[in-house]
């Protein structure tokens, strides 16, 4: 059935004010995201080096592994990741709704305040203030600020959607919307705590319940931020880029709901063989296995969309990143359900295999899709050409090599650790001490360090390339199209 949807341009009839898309805030957030990428990956490289040469902490608490590691994860997720997600959400929601951002001042405020929040939060971690929950380390005053800013993000986004000129809500907006709503819920519940001092608080949940709530948060931060949010990016920029509609729109919507429903239950796979009820662990495992279906459906949808647009690759280094990111997305979402199987997890859990899995997702999927998107977006924002296509092509190979090396090194380390942690001598005691095993990891860690340096160098090159692209050029002013009728085929 085809139904014509009629809409009118604002301002056509009675007011003379011309409305443009608000892209300055997008540009600002992209630049911030790039800066955080470089800083947080530098911290990653530094902690990777500390695992080889512990002396690099120089007995200074600010340089200790424990503090820098949290700086790495928070900086990369909240600085690089969230800034990129805000930027692309603001950019795409305007274009998929054919209206400029609602509440542009609030959008600016949220974007700028977020940067100060990440900066201050990072410093507080370096100073040793830490709530002790992974990916939710920041202490309670920061939690309140994050909650407020997140609500503002939601206000800008959903008000824009409410004012849209196109009746159907495009699938990328479902994912960005899911990101905003679910992260707000997770963050607020998981951060419930009793403050003791300004920078110390105690969780509201006791014992094992606290662990369950924490990993309900932790896993869904992966699910709705590192996966869902970035899928929003994929669903807008990939078809745009390839100049093709998404291969199957229906599949994308089905996958969205399947994904949203199953992810929420999967958290307990982080707590296998812990002091939580057995059935909760089994439920988490079952739901993780189910998750493979929507994840791979999404990957296939993406790959099929590009497959018909191969001729674009000639002129466009950005598309290569997106293609590869889909391959790594496929890897991470296959590996994850497998590691959620209890008999695999019993070996993999305390090993670097987990770290390998994390970074196959983080480098291969999150970072690559963002790089691809930025290479596409930034020249368009300023109406110019990319400063250097050759550099972008070189960056592609560096990113691929860095990710492969990282993942392979961690697989090697993981298997060795799995065997060594668990090997018993004749009288049934552990054969090797923790210290000996860690010492034997040096070769793998060296390899990971090299991988990280290559990946970081690529990111630095991209930042330079994009900065030169933007330099001296104002943001292009784009008006919503003057179309008044849309057809929707259902």
């Amino acid at each position, binding site marked *: 059935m085809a139904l014509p949807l009629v809409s009118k341009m604002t301002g056509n009839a009675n007011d003379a004010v011309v409305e443009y898309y608000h892209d300055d805030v997008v540009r600002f957030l992209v630049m911030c995201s790039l800066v955080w990428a470089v800083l947080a990956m530098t911290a990653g490289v530094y902690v990777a080096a500390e695992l080889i040469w512990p002396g690099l902490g120089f007995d200074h608490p600010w340089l200790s592994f424990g503090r820098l590691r949290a700086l790495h994860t928070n900086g990369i997720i909240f600085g690089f990741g969230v800034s990129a997600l805000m930027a692309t959400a603001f950019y795409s929601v305007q274009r998929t709704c054919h209206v400029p951002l609602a509440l542009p001042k609030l959008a600016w405020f949220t974007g700028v305040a977020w940067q100060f929040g990440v900066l201050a939060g990072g410093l507080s971690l370096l100073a040793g203030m830490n709530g002790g929950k992974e990916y939710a380390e920041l202490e309670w005053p920061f939690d309140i600020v994050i909650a407020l800013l997140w609500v503002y993000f939601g206000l800008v986004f959903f008000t824009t959607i409410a004012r849209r000129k196109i009746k159907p809500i495009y699938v990328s907006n479902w994912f960005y919307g899911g990101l905003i709503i679910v992260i707000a819920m997770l963050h607020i519940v998981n951060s419930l705590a009793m403050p003791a001092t300004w920078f110390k608080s105690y969780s509201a949940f006791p014992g094992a319940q606290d662990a369950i709530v924490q990993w309900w948060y932790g896993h869904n931060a992966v699910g709705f931020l590192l996966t869902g949010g970035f899928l929003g990016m994929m669903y807008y920029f990939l078809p745009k880029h390839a100049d093709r509609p998404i291969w199957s729109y229906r599949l994308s919507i089905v996958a969205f709901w399947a994904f949203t429903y199953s992810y929420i239950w999967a958290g307990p796979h982080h707590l296998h063989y812990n002091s939580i009820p057995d059935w909760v662990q089994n439920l988490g495992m079952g739901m993780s296995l189910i998750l493979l279906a929507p994840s791979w459906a999404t990957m296939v949808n993406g790959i099929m969309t590009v497959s018909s647009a191969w001729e674009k690759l000639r002129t466009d280094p950005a598309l290569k990143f997106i293609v590869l990111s889909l*391959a790594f997305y496929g890897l991470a979402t296959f590996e994850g359900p497998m590691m959620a199987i209890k008999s695999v997890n019993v070996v993999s859990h305390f090993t670097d295999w987990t770290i390998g899995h994390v970074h196959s997702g983080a480098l291969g999927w999150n970072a690559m899709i963002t790089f691809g998107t930025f290479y596409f977006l930034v020249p368009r924002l300023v109406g110019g050409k990319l400063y250097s296509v050759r550099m972008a092509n070189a960056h592609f190979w560096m990113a691929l090599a860095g990710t492969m090396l990282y993942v392979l090194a961690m697989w090697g380390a993981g298997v060795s650790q799995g065997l060594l942690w668990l090997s018993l001598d004749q009288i049934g005691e552990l054969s090797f001490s923790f210290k000996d095993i860690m010492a034997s990891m040096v070769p793998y860690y060296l390899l990971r360090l090299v991988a990280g340096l290559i990946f970081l160098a690529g990111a630095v090159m991209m930042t330079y390339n994009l900065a030169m692209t933007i330099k001296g050029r104002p943001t292009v002013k784009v008006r919503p199209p003057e179309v008044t009728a849309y057809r929707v085929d259902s």
Partner: protein
Amino acid sequence: MRTTIQSWLFFRLLTKPSVVFVELSETRPSPYSVFFRFIFWLALIPPVFAYIGAANFGWHLGAAEPLFMSNEELIAISIAYFIALLFGFISTAMIAQWMAATYGARHSLGIHFAVVTIVAAPLAVGSIVHLYPHVFVNVLVLIPTLIWSMYLLYRGLPIVLKIGPERGMLMASSLIGWLLVAAVSLLGLSVGLWGSGIGPSIGV
């Protein structure tokens, strides 16, 4: 037009890879001849050398003494390794044939067998390093070999299938996706087996 691939191609691989691929694109090898003349023998290299190395020196995982296993266990592991490699070769070629249709390159299975063989040859030969079963030494030799193989894949696929570099790039990336998934499945499978008492004994 030739119906099999020539052995000298493997040596030219080191000096003039593009010549090899152009030559390959002009052949119509039969899958059987590629399999029995090359794949089978190449896939024997890693398990055989792994067996000799492990039986004589024991694996060095890094910590303390080398890990020795009984002869039966070693034989079982080597056979499993061989089967896994054959499965890897054949499944990759078949998946490549299936994918090729999407990229507008319909070819016989034989040519895909040949490409996969050529691309994997450096890795198979490099695995002679299993003779010295020290994990780090193996990693040190096999990682550069792997990079070489990946280079051959990206370089060779479009030439042999005559599909233009853009589609070749897409297809090579998709194949890498498949290979990573296959590798991690193997990892998961082995770990699952150890946990249930098959393979090296661990305290689970």
